[in-house]
């Protein structure tokens, strides 16, 4: 149908414009298809890696295999093998395959939100590279699989809490006891009553403490007196004019007396010798003998007195016991 002029004006280069539009469209379409093919890795050399998993849940075709957070491969195919395990075929571009070594470990991790993630870990990049078509086991870590177990545990915990908090439960009883204790704490006897369980016991304890205080006071007096006694004893025994002093003096006297005695005995010896020598002259000797006898008598008296003195001054010989006042 021919259009009426004035309604819509047709440009002169209509054919060119339409051709341009169609050409542009065709170019965009072909360019997009080529780009998609490029993006899907059709134009690059790839190698195949097969992961064997017990459970491929959450894994889907087109999913990335990541290494250090960077995608280096894509799941291409999934199937069950003869043993009922999942085989996940992954295409890895050759240029990214260098991150995979024979010692690489593969994991499937599944979070609560989002799909699973297949990750590769390579401990040592010096190990020999992974061969094309390698088949590796894959470890599985699944957060959502933990949830049922966690819920079960949580339920037990909640039941325990419920039992504890129920009326007549142990927690209630404990709280009641705690209340009684705090009431006692706030009472007249305070913490003692709380610890001992009643005012009576607390009173007994305070009484006992009072008694102990009194006892300590009297003990203190005793020890003071004892101190005095010890001081006196010290003075009596070791002080000036004390027992020890007297003993020392007595010993000195004894020494002197013994010296006198020795002199006397020497004289007696001499006298006896003289007596022997001048036995004949008995008459003459009789005078000397009387003198000698007097001297011996005096010495013996002195010795006797000394012994008496010692016995008197040396109290330990009579009794070793020291009587404290």
């Amino acid at each position, binding site marked *: *149908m021919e*259009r009426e002029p004035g309604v*819509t004006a*047709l*440009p002169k280069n*209509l*054919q060119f*414009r*339409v051709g341009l*539009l*169609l050409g*542009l*469209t065709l170019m*965009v*379409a072909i*360019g*997009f*298809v080529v*780009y*998609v093919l*490029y*993006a*899907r*890795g059709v134009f690059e050399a790839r190698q195949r890696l097969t992961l064997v998993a017990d459970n491929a849940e959450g894994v889907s*075709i*087109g999913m*990335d295999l990541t290494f250090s957070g960077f*995608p280096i491969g*894509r799941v291409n195919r999934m199937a069950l093998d003869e043993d009922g395990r999942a085989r996940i075929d992954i295409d890895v571009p050759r240029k990214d395959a260098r991150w995979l070594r024979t010692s690489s470990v593969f994991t499937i991790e599944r979070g609560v*939100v*989002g799909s699973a993630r297949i990750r590769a870990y390579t401990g040592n990049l010096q190990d020999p590279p992974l061969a094309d078509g390698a088949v590796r086991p894959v470890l599985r870590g699944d957060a959502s699989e933990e949830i049922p177990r966690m819920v079960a545990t949580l339920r037990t915990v909640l039941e325990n809490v419920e039992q504890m908090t129920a009326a007549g439960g142990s927690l209630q009883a404990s709280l009641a006891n705690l209340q009684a204790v705090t009431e006692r704490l706030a009472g007249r006897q305070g913490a003692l009553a709380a610890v001992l369980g009643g005012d009576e016991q607390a009173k007994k304890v305070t009484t006992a403490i009072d008694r102990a205080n009194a006892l300590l006071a009297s003990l203190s007096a005793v020890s003071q007196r004892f101190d005095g006694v010890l001081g006196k004893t010290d003075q009596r025994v070791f002080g000036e004019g004390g027992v020890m002093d007297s003993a020392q003096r007595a010993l000195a006297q004894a020494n002197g007396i013994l010296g006198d005695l020795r002199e006397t005995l020497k004289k007696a010896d001499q006298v006896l010798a003289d007596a022997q020598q001048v036995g004949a002259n008995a008459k003459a000797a009789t005078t000397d003998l009387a003198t000698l006898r007097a001297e011996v008598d005096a010495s013996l008296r002195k010795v006797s007195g000394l012994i008496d003195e010692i016995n008197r001054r040396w109290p330990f010989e009579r009794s070793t016991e020291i009587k404290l006042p």
Partner: protein
Amino acid sequence: MTRRDATLGWIRVWGRAARLALAVAVAGFSPASYTPHTRTVALQQIYFTAWQVLIRFTLFAALLGLVVVQITVSVARDFDLAAYALELVLRVLVLEVIPLLTALFVALRSGAAINTEVALMQVSGELDGMRAEDMDPVEREFLPRVLATGISVTALTILGCGLVLVTAYLAMYGFSPWGFNEYSRTIARVFDPPALVGFALKCLAFSLAVAVIPVAAGTEATRQMRSAPVAVMGGMVRLFFALGLIEVLALAVKYV
């Protein structure tokens, strides 16, 4: 009108559309149909349908892409799902929204015009005159319009989607070239062969519906002037339902 009459009428109008589609297909496969007149009409139709709206339509698509990508990415970041944002945008915008919007746009603009034009041809007796002169109106008038509309819908869809792809990249990564690898991986994930084939089939179905249903509806008009608005209204409503049905079917096949 009883329910039975309504059902019969429904079958009749859809049968008319199917018959016209078949007739156009037969004519399209016949080399004798491609006369200079057919070519001129087709070129004019493509010019009116696609070229005239190209700038506005692509700008609209780019703006839509920009806004949707920004919203999706920021929301996805809030939920720590940013890795899925681009994939989501591509799946929703490029595979679903842009083709449907393009088809609706062409249906509203050129579909309505063609529907009216054909209805007026019927009212004015032009089509009957052609038949009387032993000229096939299908070959002479309908084929170029159907072809041109189909091509226009396809072209606008492809250009719109292409622009949205570019806009999505720019909105996501800015002018940095370093997002290219990640972007390519997402493209590879979204546009796997089944998705591409489904996309192409859906575009074809949209083009066919937008091209055929208005023409078929136009032929329902009678010689009376008052029949033209009824024919246009019925045709546009049917076209709307047909587009919706195609979209729902495509989604059902892909995701259910």
